[in-house]
C-alpha cells in the first residue's frame, strides 16, 4: 500500500523562553529528536505517549502548523517540510485537523452552518449549503443543527461539528489530537464509532493522538509510542498489545485502570 506520509529523521526544536538570558538568544529545546516513520493510505495510526512526549508537536509538524528544524516530511509525494505559507495553502485542504477542545475550537458567535461553511468558502468550493448538509449528515447530526450555536450543543455534539468541518473538505488525511479525552464515555463511544465508520466508508487516513490506550486499541491499525521525543515502539496494534517490547509501553499498559476490581494493579 502506498504511503500518504513519509517522515524521515524529523527534528523539531523550539526556543526555550523560560531560560532566555536578558540579552542574546534563548537556548533551543529539542522536542522531536529524529523520528522516522510512514503512514499508509487508508490506515489509522495511533500516536501515544505521556504528557511532554512530543505527540502533539509531532501532529502539528505533520499538518505544518509548526515548521520542522530538520529532516523531511513528505505528504502525497510533495515535500512539505519547509514549504511557505502561500505554497501550503492549496495543500491544506488535503490535510485537516480536529482539535481537543471542541468549545474553544468553534467560534461561539457563529452558527454551526457558518462554522462548517467557512473553510469550504476559503478553499473556493461550490454548492456550499449542500456540502454542509452532507457533512452534518455524515456525522449523524440533523440538518437543522446548522442554525444552532456551539453553546447549545453537548460536548459530543460539538466534537461532531468539529469532525464535520474537517470532513466537509474531503481531505485525504485527518489529524485528531486527543479528540475524545474531554468527553464522557458515552459520547466517547459515539465519536469513536463515527470515526471508525468514516475511515471504513471514505477510505480516509487518520492519525489519532491519544494518551488512552484502550481507545487506541479500538481504532488504530498501528500504534506508535513516543517518549521524550523519540519513537520507542511502532508496530501493528494487535502485536503491540499482545507483546509490548519497550519497557515504557509496558508501563503505559500497566497503568491503565480497567473497569474491573480484580485487575492486579501494582
Amino acid at each position, binding site marked *: 500500500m502506498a504511503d500518504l506520509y513519509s517522515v524521515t529523521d524529523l527534528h523539531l526544536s523550539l526556543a526555550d523562553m523560560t531560560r532566555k538570558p536578558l540579552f542574546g538568544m534563548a537556548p533551543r529545546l529539542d522536542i522531536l529528536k529524529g523520528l522516522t516513520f510512514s503512514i499508509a493510505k487508508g490506515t489509522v495510526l495511533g500516536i501515544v505517549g*505521556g*504528557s*511532554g512526549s512530543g505527540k502533539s508537536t509531532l501532529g502539528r509538524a505533520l499538518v505544518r502548523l509548526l515548521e520542522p528544524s530538520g529532516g523531511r516530511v513528505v505528504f502525497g509525494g510533495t515535500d512539505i517540510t519547509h514549504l511557505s505559507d502561500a505554497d501550503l495553502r492549496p495543500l491544506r485542504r488535503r490535510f485537516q485537523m480536529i482539535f481537543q477542545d471542541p468549545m474553544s475550537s468553534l467560534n461561539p458567535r457563529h452558527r454551526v452552518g457558518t462554522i462548517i461553511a467557512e473553510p469550504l468558502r476559503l478553499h473556493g468550493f461550490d454548492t456550499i449549503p449542500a456540502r454542509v448538509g452532507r457533512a452534518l449528515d455524515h456525522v449523524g447530526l440533523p440538518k437543522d443543527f446548522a442554525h444552532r450555536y456551539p453553546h447549545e450543543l453537548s*460536548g459530543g455534539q460539538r466534537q461532531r461539528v468539529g469532525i464535520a468541518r474537517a470532513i466537509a473538505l474531503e481531505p485525504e488525511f485527518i489529524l485528531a489530537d486527543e479528540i475524545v479525552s474531554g468527553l*464522557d*464515555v*458515552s*459520547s*466517547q*463511544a*459515539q465519536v*469513536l*464509532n463515527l470515526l471508525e465508520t468514516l475511515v471504513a466508508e471514505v477510505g480516509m487516513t487518520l492519525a489519532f493522538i491519544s*494518551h*488512552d*490506550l*484502550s*481507545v*487506541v*486499541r*479500538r481504532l488504530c491499525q498501528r500504534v506508535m509510542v513516543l517518549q521524550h521525543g523519540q519513537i520507542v515502539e511502532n508496530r501493528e496494534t494487535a502485536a503491540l*498489545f499482545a507483546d509490548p517490547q519497550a519497557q515504557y509501553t509496558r*508501563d*503505559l*499498559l*500497566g*497503568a*491503565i*485502570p*480497567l*473497569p*474491573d*476490581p480484580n*485487575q492486579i*494493579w501494582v
Partner: protein
Amino acid sequence: MSFLEVRNLSARVKGGGPLLRDVSLTVEVGEVRGLVGESGAGKSMIGKAILGILPKAVEITGGQIVLDGSDLLTLPPAARRVKVGASCALIPQDPLTALNPSRRIGVQITDRLVDILGWTRQRAEERALALLGEVQITDPTRVLRQYPHELSGGMRQRILIASAFAAEPKLIVADEPTTALDVTVQKQILKLIAALQARHGTALLFVTHDLGVVSKVCQNLSVLYAGKVVEDSAVADFFRAPKHPYSAALLAATPKYTDPSAGLQPVPDAVIAAVRAEVEHG
C-alpha cells in the same frame, strides 16, 4: 452513625431547574466512596455543597448534610466554616489553577495551618516538610521554596494532596484529582491517595467519571444521573452486576483495552429516556 450523611439533599440554580434531586449518601470513617456520573450530573455540586463552596447562583432547597453529628445547613455560617475547615479538605481537579502562581509552595501549605488552626509557623513548616516526604517528593526542603510553575503536573498534584492531608482532616473530597494527568502519573497519584487515606483512616468522597479509577480506589459508589442517585452499591457488586440499567449501560460504554472485540456501546437512547423519566417523575 456515619461520619458524613447527606440526606435528601436538593439544590437548584436560583430561578432555574433542579441540580440535585433528593440525594442521599453516606461516607464512613476510613471509607472511600466513589461518586460517578456524566458531566453535568451534579457530582461536583455534591462535593461543593458539603464543603460550603457552592457557586452563588446555586441554592439548596431541602435536605441535610450531617457531618460528625451536626447538620451543616442549620449551623450559622461562621460556625460552619470552623467546623468544615477543621475537619474537611479538598483535592481539586486542576493542580495549576488551584495553586497561587505568585507564592512559594511552602507558604501555600502552611498558611492554612497557621491562620485557621492557629499553629506556630515552625510547627507548620515541620509538618509541611514531613508531608512532602510522605507524598514521595525528593528534596522537600528545596520544593518548599519553589513556585508552582517550576513543578510538573504530577508534582503539583502531590503538593495539593500533601496540603489536603496537612491538618489531619476526617473527610476529604477529591474532585477528579487525576483527570489532568497522564496514565502513568495517574497511577502513582491514585496509589498515593489510597495509601495516605488508609494510613490516616480518612473518609474520602472520590468524584470521578472514570469507572476504571473507581474500581481501583473505592469500596462503594453512588451513580448519579441528572442530579439523582440511581444506584448505590459496593464496588465489587457493581462491577459484577450493576443494579440499574443506566449504570450497566455506562459500564458497557467504558473502553477496555484487554477486550478489543467488544464494540463500544454508547448509552442507548431508550436507557436515557427511561432514566430521565424516572429521575424527573419520581
